[in-house]
Structures are given as C-alpha cells and as structure tokens.
C-alpha cells in the first residue's frame, strides 16, 4: 500500500529542475499582436489523433506516463477527511501493484493530489513520505469573486497549511473587458502570495469567449510569473478542449522562445479516457517537445481518467478487456 521508497517532497516540483519563471514587465504590444484563428486551430486539433498513434508497449508506457502526470482531484462540497485519505492512498498506489510490477514501474504515483483548502492538512498527512505534493485550489475557487484581500489571504493560509502548489483562478472580467493591466497585477499579487509554492493560473477558458482571449490571457499570466497555466476549474460548462490546449501551449512555446523560461501546462476537466490522454501527450510532444512530458511541466487535472487507464493497462497485460470493479476506486 505504502510507497516503498521515501522521496524528497519536491521531486515533482518545477524548481527541482527548472529555473522558476520570474515573470517580466507587461508587454502590451506582444499581447495585442497575438492572433488565434479558430477554424485553423480546430482543424489542427482534429487531425492530431489521426496523425499520431502509439501502440502496444509504447501505449502502455505512455499511459503510465499519463498517470504520473495526473493531479488526482476531488473538489466537491461533500468532501470529507476520509474521502480525501482514500484519494491520497490511490495517488500513492494508482494501479494494482502486480500490474505495475509486470510493467516494470513499481514506484509509480500520480503527479499530485488536488483539494480545497480545508483538506490540505488531511492530504499532507496522508501523503507524508510519499513525495507526492498537495495542490490546493484557491482565490475563491471556482468563481474567484470573493474580496481580493481574502483571495490573497486564502493563498497564504493554504501555503502555510502545507500546499506546495496553488491553483488560482483569474478574474474573468479582466479578460472580457480587455483590462490586461488588471489581470497582470492580480496574477502578480497571487504569485507573490504563493512564495515558494508554485502557482497554477486557472484561466477558466470556457468563460473567456474566444481563443484569442485565451491566448492573450495565457501570455499575461506568464508575464506576471505563473509557473503553470491551466485551462479550467472543471466547473465551467466547457472545460479542457484540444483547441484551447493548442492555443495555450503555443503561448507557452512563444514565451519560452522569447524569455527562455519554461512554463507548465495543465488541462483540467473533461479528460476521462485513456485515448484522450494519449492525444494530449502527443500534442504536447509535437508542439512543445519531450521536455514538457514531465510532471514539473505538465499535469492532467482529472478524477475519472485514472480508472480508464487502469483498465487499459490490464488489457495490455492480459489481452482481455477489463472491468472497473477489478481496480481500487479512488
């Protein structure tokens, strides 16, 4: 049940290997020059699954990689301590041990656990010694409309409670009103409040109206020092999609080309099938490169994805289609 080796509790965090994005002054010329042609982006997104295919051992390896990139998440009003503990146990042993043994990756864990502030303490305790970081959603998640000083304070308290990653939500209105300065200032304040904890900026792309807005908001958040940019809270009617992902990772690529800093990417919400995960990984590999296929630069925000991957892995090993009840629930 317990991971067999003790890892440092930062082994999956960006600062372990990459210099952290320090941000840069807001460059409005750059922001306003950004274009995003929706039809063309959709065409590219639609063909990626036809252009890239991974089979057999490669598929199994890629699915294991996907597990290592999951922020195993519970963000429900009815979360309890025991529910969170159960999820943490799943994060530490995401797949039946004998399956992992067969595949030669016995120490596999998920990338992180993602919870609300009140559950940080429980999660940190449950994960103690596992090396799996706890991420907390913050800043009045999911709407982000509580008083600003409370949002900043929420971050501070979550960091104090032991969260190593903070998933903040931006004020969508700043994007919808084209108030980039306000978005920049807000993001910068959140980043400062995070201190050493890493900050993931949730853009709530389903509420930004256009892909162009997604591209511009991505850039502004990176300029303000985001360590990760993330699509969604999972609570919008439209969450992570391939077109949105394409826009955000192209923004990440441009930011890297211009500044030399790698910013991470986290699609969240709606990715529930193993096949979808493979498409995302191929998209990241092709558009950003292999370096982004590590947990310090890529995460899936997902809750039901793991179950589908487990079934696929068992099928890979046995040649027989699997059943959900054969795998421990999260």
């Amino acid at each position, binding site marked *: 049940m317990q991971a067999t080796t003790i890892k440092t509790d930062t082994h999956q965090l960006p600062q372990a290997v990459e210099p952290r994005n320090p941000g840069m002054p807001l460059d409005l010329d750059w922001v306003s020059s950004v274009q995003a042609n929706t*039809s063309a982006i959709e065409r590219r997104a639609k063909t990626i699954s036809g252009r890239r295919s991974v089979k057999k051992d490669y598929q199994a390896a890629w699915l294991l990689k996907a597990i290592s990139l999951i922020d195993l998440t519970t963000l429900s009003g009815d979360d309890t301590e025991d529910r969170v503990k159960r999820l943490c146990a799943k994060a530490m042993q995401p797949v039946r041990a004998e399956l992992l043994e067969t595949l030669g990756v016995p120490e596999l864990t998920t990338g992180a656990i993602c919870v609300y502030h009140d559950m940080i303490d429980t999660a940190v305790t449950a994960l103690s010694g596992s090396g799996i970081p706890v991420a907390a959603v913050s800043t009045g998640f999911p709407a982000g409309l509580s008083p600003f000083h409370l949002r900043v304070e929420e971050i501070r308290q979550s960091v104090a409670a032991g969260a190593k990653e903070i998933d903040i939500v931006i004020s969508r209105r700043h994007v919808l009103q084209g108030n980039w300065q306000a978005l920049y200032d807000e993001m910068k304040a959140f980043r400062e409040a995070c201190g050493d904890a890493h900050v993931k900026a949730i853009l709530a792309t389903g509420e930004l109206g256009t892909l162009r807005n997604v591209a511009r908001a991505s850039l502004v958040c990176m300029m303000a020092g985001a360590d990760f940019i993330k699509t969604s809270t999972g609570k919008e009617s439209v969450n992570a999609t391939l077109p949105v992902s394409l826009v955000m990772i192209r923004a990440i690529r441009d930011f890297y080309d211009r500044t030399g800093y790698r910013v991470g990417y986290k699609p969240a919400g709606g990715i529930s099938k193993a096949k979808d995960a493979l498409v995302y990984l191929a998209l990241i590999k092709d558009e950003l490169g292999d370096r982004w296929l590590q947990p310090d630069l890529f995460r899936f925000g997902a809750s039901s994805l793991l179950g589908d991957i487990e079934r696929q892995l068992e099928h890979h090993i046995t040649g027989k289609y699997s059943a959900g009840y054969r795998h421990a629930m999260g």
Partner: protein
Amino acid sequence: MTVKEIFDTMEYGPAPESAADALAWLVDQGSSFGHFINGDFTKATDSFDSKNPATGETLAKLSQAGQSDVDAAVKAARAAQGKWGALPGHSRARYLYAIARLIQKHSRLFAVLETLDNGKPIRESRDIDIPQVQRHFYYHAGMAQLMDAELPDREALGVCGQIVPWNFPLLMLAWKIAPAIAMGNTVVLKPAEYTSLTALLFADICRQAGLPKGVVNIVTGDGAVGEMIVNHKDIDKIAFTGSTTVGRKIREATAGSGKALTLELGGKSPYIVFDDADIDSAIEGLVDAIWFNQGQVCCAGSRLLVQEGIADAFYKKLRARMDGLRIGSPLDKCIDVGAVVDPVQLKTITDMVDANTDGQTYVADSPLPADGCFYAPTLITGLSTASKLMQEEIFGPVLCSMTFRTPSEAVEIANNTRYGLAATLWTENVNLALDIAPKLVAGVVWVNATNLFDASAGFGGVRESGFGREGGWEGLHAYTKPISATKKLTKIEAFTGDDGPTDPLDRTAKLYIGGKQARPDGGYSQNVYSSKGKLLGQAPIANRKDIRNAVEAAAGAKAWSKTTGHLRAQILYYIAENLSARAEEFAKRIDALTGKRGGEAEVQTAISRLFTYAAWADKYDGQVHGVPIRGVALAMKEPVGVIGAICPDETPLLGLISLMAPAIAMGNRVVLTASEAFPLAALDFYQVLETSDVPAGVVNILSGNHAELAQTLADHLNVDAVWSFSSSDISADIEKASAANLKRTWVNNAQARDWSGPDGEGRSFLEAATEVKNIWVPYGE
C-alpha cells in the same frame, strides 16, 4: 525497449496498419490483372509490375492495353451509352448511391491498397482520399437524381475518355467517373501506370453494384494507352488530369476533332502570409499544403510568400515545425510524410533541387528510412521571382519562399506565373482577405486554410493550369451539352463586282482599337460589294500588328473587369439606345451587304440582345456552396479576361453583338473580327460605341481575313480565350494554336447556329464569358 525505457524516453514507436487484407485481395485476384471492359476483366497479359514505392516490392502484374483493348472498351462504352443516358436520373442515382455505399463498406481495403500502391501515408488515404471518394459518389448520386428537373436543356456528351494521375489515384477516378456517369455518359478510364490497383478494385465494386456493362471501362498501361484514348474517333470528350506538358499535347491532338476537353494541369500555387496572420496556424497550414502527399499535389502551396517584417520569425518557427515531421513507412499510423511515388519522380525532385544555387536550403532534421523512395521535407528561402524553383513545379515536398512588402506586391508576385490553379492567403483581417482573394489569378482560393476540397465546390484552374471545373454545379458543364440540332455551316463568300459606288461621297471605315479609329497597319483595304455588284465601300485589312495593338488595348482596359455589373448594364442599355436611334440606317446597310431583306429584324434582335445582356450584367450571380465545414465556399463568377472573337459571317451586326454583349457584360475585354464577307456593319457600329460611354480598349473591332487573324489571336499569349463562329473552317487551327498558353476556346466546328433564335443568346454565352473561382472562407471565433 522495455516499458520503463519508453516511459523515460516517450518515443512514439511503430504503429503499423496491417496490409494483410489488401495483400490477400491481390492474391485472390491472382496478383495479376487484365482490363475491365464491358463488365468483365480481360485475360491478363502481365506486361508490367505495379510496385510499392516504400519497399520496392512488386504488388501485382498489370496489362498494357493495345489498340484492340481500347477499341473494345470504347465500343462497349458506346453500346452502353444510349440506354444509360436514357435512364431516368433516379435510376442512375441508385447506381451511384450503391457505389458510394460499397466504397464505404470497403473503405479500409481501399485505403490500405492505395497506400501500398502510391506511398501516401495511411492517415491520408484513410482520412482524406477515400472519404472524399465516397462523398463524390454520394454528391453526384444527387446530381443524377436532379438532372431531369434541374438540367432539362442539357444531355450527356456520350463516351468520355478519362486519364487520371498517380497522386490521388482513386480520388481522381471519382472526380472523373462520378459526374460523367451521373449525367448519363459512359467512360473509358485509364489510371496512371504507377497506381492502377484501386481503379481495378473499383471495377470490382462496379460489378457488385450491378452497374450495367460498358458504363465504366478501365484500361491500364502507360502514356501510349492515353494517346490511343485521346485520338480515338468514337470518343466525345477527353478529361485529363496531369502535367501541363501532356495537357498541351492533348489540346493539340484533339484540336478540330469536336471532342469536348477539360484539363486539370500543373500549378505553382502561392501561399501568402500577411503579418497579421495567426502564424502558428499558417505554419501548420504549410504542413497540409506542401508536405501533404509528399508535395505531389497539383494545387500544393509550393510558393511561400511571407510579409517581410515577419519573415525571419516565421522561417524560424517553420524550420522547427519541419523538424517535427515524421517520415517513414506509409502504413505507419504515426507518420506525416510517406514515400514518393516512384524512383523516377524521386530523381526529378532531387535533380531540380540539386541544380538550384539560389537562396538558403533547409532540410528537415528528421530521420529518413534507409530504403525506399523518400525525400526529406525541404525549405528554400531567399528566392526571387527569377529563380527557376519559384517558377517551375517540383511536385515534391519542397517549399520555395520569398518575401513581399505590401498587399499589392503580394498579389503581383502571386500572379507572376504561367499557372493559376490555387492560392492560399492568411490574414486575420477580413477586409484584406476579401480584397486579395478575387485578385489572385487562380481557380481556387483558400482563406486561412489550404487544400480544402469537396464534391460541391468546383476545382480547376486558369491560365496554364488548364480549364474546366470538377465538382459542384459548375462541374456538370464538363459532362453535358445543350440539347440542340446541328446543321453544317458553309463558307459565306463576299460578293464581287466592278460597279461604281452608290454614293460618290466617300466614307472611310477604319479599325477600332483602344477607343480610337485606326487605319490598318498594313495600309491595305478591300472593296466591299453588294449582291448586285455595286461598290459599298472599303474595309481595312487588319494584320498581325493590328491584332497586337488591339490586344494591348484590351489588356490595358482591365479596369472594366472591376466595374460593377450595374455600370456595365447601363452602358449596354446605352449602346442599345444609340443603335436604336440609327436602326433604319443599319437595317439598310445590312440589306445592302447581305442582299437580303432581314436588316430591320436583325437590328431589332440586336437591340433586344443588348437588353438581354444588360439584364444579365448584374444578375449572373455566383453561388455559395454548401461545403461540409463551418464556412463558405464562394463560387464567384469572374471574367475570363481578354477574349478574341471571330464573329459570324452571316449576320454581320447581330453576330458581332451576340458575342460582344455577353463578353463585356461579364467584364471581359474583347477583340472582335467583323464578318469577313460583310464587314461594314461592324465598322459602322464603332460609331455607336463611341457615343455610348464604352471605355477605350474594352471593345476593339478589326476586319480582314478570318483565318489569318484567328491564327494570330490564338497564338497570342496575352489572350485568355478565343471564340470562333466564322464560316471559314478555322476551328482546328484555333484549338491547336491555343495550346501554347492553354487559352480557353469556344469554336463552332463548322456547325451553324441560329443567331436570331434562342440559341443565339443565353447561359451558354455567359458560361463561356466567365470562370468560376471558388473562395473558401472557414470562419468562427
């Protein structure tokens, strides 16, 4: 590699599509094929091998058709055509629908076989070629269904000879066969010798669909078989897709034969990126433009034009994207670029690129398979319009690039080519896009996209990229003709005489060039006599230089093509008004010239005809095609350009107006040669033009020898089309000479036309006076 190692490296690994079923199908057929004639396969003669270009392995043995095979195929097609063409549209629709369904049911077999034979990635044959083939048959099942109701005045051409290339073997077959048989034609089709296998599988599908014997016949072999089809006396129409060189030969070979002809030829299509484009999307578009099907695409965006300010950044990103392209086994589901079709084509590409010394060449940093016909994606930047590679089609995965400064310079460079097949432009500015798209000389324009195709939108080129459209309503003209009785036209001779003039006051008729009356360059005139031998006057004898001057004037009057239909209508009405004021005089002149009494009626019909085209000038609308994307394909009707027209002899005024009016109504500029026998009415007519606000150069009128003038016009490389309704037998010469720049021709083949009746006006004239350009505009924010 172990799972753990792959976990660490995250490589793609092989993802092969199984070829087992396709190979088993070949074995079931004895790995050897005859021709498909009259519903059955002939005995195989094992003349040549069909090879897999990715491995060099022989897939099957094919038969080289001889004259007797082609004769048998044509005979079967001819025998079947009457009954097939006479079937109700609905009956033909059922067969086309069955074919579409059967292809769908065997879609993977078709896709794998295509990839084995051609070398294109399985992704493309599976996701693009075969679905498009199905779509083409579904769409044209609908056209067969609607033909009786929607095209009541048109009928099948008869037997169609069709020659298709190796780059999209089955798709080009579908583009040819579906509309042909939907409209009641029967076909003899020759696939390319490199890639005949899916055509032979298609033959099998025709049998399964219960298609009547002889409706579809397929003969295999090399160019010699193509020549037999082209030259066959009992074929009514030739449709060819392939190189411009061969297209030109076919134009010459069919000249004067009366065969209908459509040609879909080469291209060097521009791909224009403005500085406000979505750069990443424009780069991804290039993958679909020039690295699709290894660049072996007639409409490939092979000339990249980038606005200077963004060029360096664009090239940097493009090179990075090229490095991410995966080249390998076409059957691998995880590759982008497959094999070039044949070692011969690989050598052509290699030689052309190796001979180039201009610019900077970048080769994708992506491993190539050790064996097989592979060529790495290549980018050559820093070229100029003078570079050979910027002008000539490479037909491989090689992108040539240069920069531009302004939108108008982009258009100039884009149009600085003998080709005119397709064009792509990228900008987020809708004003710029919709301004530039109509200015690009091409049959298809894609805005913020590239290589989009659909059965509902016509595809085809202008200039030396050929003529005719495939797909859409506009494509049906290539496989139908108006229902009309034909009558032989005999040469109308001028009257002779030696009497003096009827009126001693001399009137000097001149040529009308560039809005001015001009004496003939040669300084010669001919006497024109009445039927009773009275001298009516002198008509100038125009020569080559007068043609040159007239064409120059017409070419210079390009502003006319941009005027509104409303303005052109106003001017046509005004011409009618001024002609009406002089009706009596023209009637008398016609009577005197022709020696008949029909002058008055002819003038009145001419006035009515001017009204007809004034009416059409702002009503011959384009279409918005229902293409299956979120977007529109705007089928815009554009003027052909400069039309040289040899006017009918028999009706000296009406004949001229019947050609001039539709041409200028649609925005063309014309060089008209007057009735050879009765030229004076046409020369009187320029006075009407002079008083009717017709801009200089829009209409030019010459008189002289039809055969001589027609030859110069047909030879002229700046004339876009030649029409001839002369009673001199010059159709063959015009068609032959037109091959030089592949100008459109519309000739009477010595058949008479009743200029005073309904055949003398209408849609046929408007169609000849326009080209359909399809502008694809995907949208969405």
